[in-house]
Each structure stands twice: as C-alpha cells, then as structure tokens.
C-alpha cells in the first residue's frame, strides 16, 4: 500500500513531477553523453597514438630508449622474432632502425630522428603511406628515397626531388657517416613532433650507412584485439631480463597520455558527483514542497496508525519512484542523443590534446556498464536527496501536522 500511495502521490502534481523527472533525466543524459564522448575521444587518441607510428607495443635493447644509442640493437633478433610471432593475436610488426641524425640541404641543416623502415611492413603498422600529401611513399627497403614531415620541409624550404644528406654516427666505430638521399615524399600526420623533426628512409640503406647489417633497433607490433584498458586482449609475455631486451606496451611508451586518460576517468567521476549533487538539491526541494503541502494529510496518516518509520519510508518510496522514472527517461534520451552523434560525430580534427592531434571526427563510444552504473548513481542520489524530507516527516508529531489544516 505504501508503494501504491507513493506512486499515486507522485502524480498528484504532474507538472512538478515531470519537471523533477526532467532534471534527473537531463542530468543523467548529460553525464552518459559526456562519458560516451570522452570514451570516444580516448579511443580516438589511443588509435591515433598507436596507428600513426607506435603500434601497440615495441621491443628494444635494454637502455636504447634512454639515449637512442645506435650501438644498442635488439639482442638475439631471431630468437626475439620467434618469441613475438608465438603470440596468437599478433597482427603486424615492423622492424626499424632508429637514429638521431643531421639532415642537410642546400638551404640548411636540421637535427632529426630518422627511422629506417621496410615500406611494406610499415604500411601495415603505421599510417605514413596514407599521410603523404606530396610525392610518393618510400618504394623499396633499399635505395635513396626519403620522406619527411611537412613542417620540416617547410622549415628547410625543401622541394620534392631535392637532394639531402643525412649525417649520423656509425655503430662500429662511432665515426660520422653520411648518405645521400632524394626527397621522394612529404607527409602530414597531424602530430607536430613527427611533422617537424622526423624522417623515414629505407631500412637496408640506413643499416648499411650505420654499419648495422642485419641488426635493428626497434620492432613495433600491432595486435588484433585490445581490451578496455587499451592493452592487448591476450597478454604479451615480456622477454627475460637476461635477453637484454625490453618490451614496452604503448601505455609505457606514452605515460603522459595514459595519465591523461586516467585523469579523464577521475574528471568524469567528479563531474558526475557535482551534477548529481545539484540534481539532488532540486529533488530535496521538490520533496520538501510536497511535504509542506500535504502536511495535514501526513498528520491523518500518522494519526490512524502509520508509524513514523513507515511515514518516512513513504517519502523515500516517492523519491525512489521519481528516481526510477527520471532515470528511465534519462537513459532513453542518452541513448537517442548518443545514437544521433554516433551517426554524425563531432569534428575535432586538427585539435591537439595531450600531444595527440585528432585526425578524425570523434564518435561517442558507449560502455555498456556505464548505462547501468550512472542510472544507479542517479537513483542513489535521488534516494539520498529524500533522506532529509523523510527525516523531517519521521520527526513531526501528528498533532503538529494536523494543525496545518487547509480549512
């Protein structure tokens, strides 16, 4: 009977109930929608970071990433390759030579990071081939092609076909060595660092130049399936310390971005708390208004034998009904809005966040558990909001309530 009473009481003032339910619904919808957008943004950022160059994981010789020492090549490469290929979910890999170098043209000299790649391997792992805005991608694993970022090209006033000299230190003697390349293409990844200070050259040419025949510095890998945290769905076994090599997931290679993603989760939690706190205040106000309006009636209810605890429960039940109703409406609105935005997306292309420039539109991404968690939050806050009116109702003496007669 108390539930029936609560539900019917709720609809005595339809306008007020609809307004309160709308407040809950909009609060919930806003939170779910923002969450789906943040999730979509995170997915986009991870995709950008891992698809452009990094891959999902990389392997290097221990200590290589500290100073990019050209001598520190991957130890026991064949054993490592066998170990990596054993992973059942490995999709693609690219073996690279990586070195700091000086790039000289007729117009000037710039320090850059140069990657020696196999163009066919690299195509599967990164997006440099798709990012070419002028000229052509590297055609062969050997030869004199070199591609670089548009910002670097602009800074050095380079034109396609121009001759360039790459100077670096060889791995055997530590002597300066030089190699002549021809600018075959210019790319634009959207990542400032890659566009302004990086170049790609054929791997075998670079290995020959640096006296690294058959040796490489880096293997970047992509796996077929990733879990919610953005790491490989099937865990990757790291090589033993004795192997002299290190395997790092992208989360370790880009700790700043990983921290930024974790921060977005915390930000969502704080935003949710603030949002629902404001909603809860509105609900408390609505319930209090209802309480004062129906004070005489509550006096009657208490007088004829309803205990204070039962009367307080009645108020909580009203809030519960309101919360469930508002949450259902909010959930439906959130799904509709998310579906609409999932169709059209939001265009953030070119905007940089946490070192990553968005390359594509952001599409909301729903995490199903959030469609359960947030409505429960909403309901929980609505119930908390009812505690004060319920406490007031619990405390008030029936004789005091009966003095609030309407006649």
């Amino acid at each position, binding site marked *: 009977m108390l539930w*029936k009473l609560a539900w019917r009481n709720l609809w005595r003032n339809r306008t007020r109930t609809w307004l309160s339910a709308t407040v809950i619904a909009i609060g919930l919808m806003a939170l779910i929608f923002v969450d789906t957008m943040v999730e979509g943004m995170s997915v986009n950022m991870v995709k950008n970071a891992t698809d452009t160059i990094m891959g999902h994981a990389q392997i290097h010789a221990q200590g290589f990433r500290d100073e990019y020492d050209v001598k520190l090549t991957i130890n026991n490469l064949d054993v490592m390759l066998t170990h990596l290929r054993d992973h059942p979910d490995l999709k693609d890999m690219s073996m690279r030579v990586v070195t700091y170098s000086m790039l000289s043209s007729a117009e000037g000299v710039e320090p850059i990071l140069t990657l020696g790649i196999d163009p066919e391997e690299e195509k599967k792992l990164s997006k440099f081939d798709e990012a070419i805005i002028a000229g052509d991608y590297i055609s062969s694993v050997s030869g004199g092609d070199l591609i670089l970022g548009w910002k670097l090209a602009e800074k050095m006033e380079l034109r396609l076909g121009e001759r360039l000299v790459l100077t670096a230190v060889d791995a055997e003697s530590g002597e300066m060595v030089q190699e002549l390349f021809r600018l075959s293409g210019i790319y634009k990844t959207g990542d400032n660092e890659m566009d302004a200070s990086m170049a790609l050259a054929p791997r075998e040419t670079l290995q020959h130049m640096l006296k690294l025949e058959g040796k490489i510095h880096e293997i970047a890998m992509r796996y077929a399936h990733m879990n919610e945290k953005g790491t490989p769905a099937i865990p990757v076994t790291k090589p033993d310390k004795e192997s002299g090599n290190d395997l790092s997931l992208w989360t370790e290679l880009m700790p700043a971005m990983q921290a930024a993603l974790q921060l977005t989760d915390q930000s969502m939690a704080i935003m949710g708390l603030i949002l629902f706190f404001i909603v809860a205040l509105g609900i408390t106000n609505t319930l209090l208004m209802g309480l004062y309006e129906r004070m005489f009636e509550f006096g*009657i209810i208490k007088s004829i034998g309803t205990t204070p605890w039962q009367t307080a429960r009645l108020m909580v039940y009203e809030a519960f009904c309101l919360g469930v109703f508002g949450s259902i409406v909010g959930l439906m609105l959130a799904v509709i809005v998310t579906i609409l935005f999932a169709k059209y997306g939001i265009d953030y292309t070119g905007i940089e966040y946490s070192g990553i420039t968005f390359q594509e539109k952001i599409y909301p991404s729903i995490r199903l558990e959030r469609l359960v968690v947030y409505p429960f939050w909403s309901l929980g806050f609505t119930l908390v909001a009812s505690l004060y009116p319920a406490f007031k109702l619990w405390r008030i003496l029936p004789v005091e309530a*009966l003095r609030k007669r309407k006649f």
Partner: protein
Amino acid sequence: MSEIVIASKNVSKHFGEGEAQVHALREVDLDINIGDFAAIVGPSGSGKTTLLNILCGLDKVSSGDIQVSGRSLQDMSGSELAKFRREHIGLVFQAYNLIPVLTVMENIEYVMLLQNVPVAERKERVEKFLTEVGLEGKGNRFPVELSGGQQQRVAIARAMVSHPDIILADEPTANLDSETGVLLLDMMRKFNEEFQMTFVFSTHDPQIMERAKRMVTLTDGHIVSDEIK
C-alpha cells in the same frame, strides 16, 4: 458497573511558557465506558480538540495520566502510540479525513493493511462496512468524487473497520450542513447501539448534542458538567 475504556486522571495541558502560557485543560477527570455515546461540548477554545487529542495519544499531557484500554499513554514512543492507535482507537476528523489518492475501498482498507489483516478478510470487512454506511457500489471512487457527508461516512467506516475499542471524532459534522450532520450522527448512534461501539465526539451544534447519550461540558479547560441522558 460498566467497563472503562478511557480513564483520565487529573489531566492538565498547557501551551507556551511563562506569561504567554495558555491552559487548555485543567485537572480533567473523565472516564469513558464501553458503549458510551458521549458528546464533549463547549464553546470554541474550551479545550474539546485538545482533550480528544490527548485521549488518543496524539498530544501529551502536561500533568496527570491517561489510560486507554488499561494502558498508560504517557510513556509510549511515537511508534508505539501509532501502533496502539492502529489497534485500539478509531479517529474521525472534521474534514479532509481521507487520503485523496486512494479509492474509498483503499482508504477503508488502509488501517487493516497496517494491521496485516489477510486479504480475503480485508475485502469482506470493507464490503460489509461500505454497506453499513450506505456506500455500496462506490468503493472504487476517489474521495473527490464524493460529497462531504459521504466522505465522513467513509471516515467512520475506516475508523470502525479495524474493530477499535473506541472511536473519537473531532467535530465530525462541523463541515456538513445540519441535515447531513444529523444523518451522520444517527448513523453513528445506530452503530453504537448495534455493535456496542463506543463513540466520543466533540461538537458545539445543539442538534447534534441532542443525539448524545452522555454530554460532557467543557469551559475554559474545566469539565463543568457530565450529564447522562
């Protein structure tokens, strides 16, 4: 000798403190017996409503003692008093007695639900009392669809349906026209005689007073007369 349902001994009630203190009841001694059909009469402000509130435990005495069905109300908590009223006392107020969002049937059933009366018995008792108060066929109506007199009859049915020891009614006819008021009192009297149900009601309407078997007159919080007709 009749059995006593309510025994009030030396009951006083005052509101406020110091110079602003108002004495609503002064050393009231009143026993209500089973089967009484008693009217508490007196001018406005004489303490009728305060006395009824105290007799049913809605209000606390400032001094003295109230016993209802052999139990003192003074030391009961709010929850105990609610449960006690639910089992032993039926209440009827001036107006707006009913819960507007419940139908007539649900209003009458409400106290029995609190008492955990089985559903079949509830339905049977509701039907019986709807017939007794002449509202058969109106069980599914909401209070707003009934006249004032009909609403008061539902309130009486609700008060009686849980088989209380006594029914207290605070000016039950105050918001009714005199003809409807008299009919309501006649119905209460009929229940008093047929079911030996004890009624105590307050009124200042001479037509209503005439129908009481016993008349307790209050003036300035004192009982000035207690007359059995």
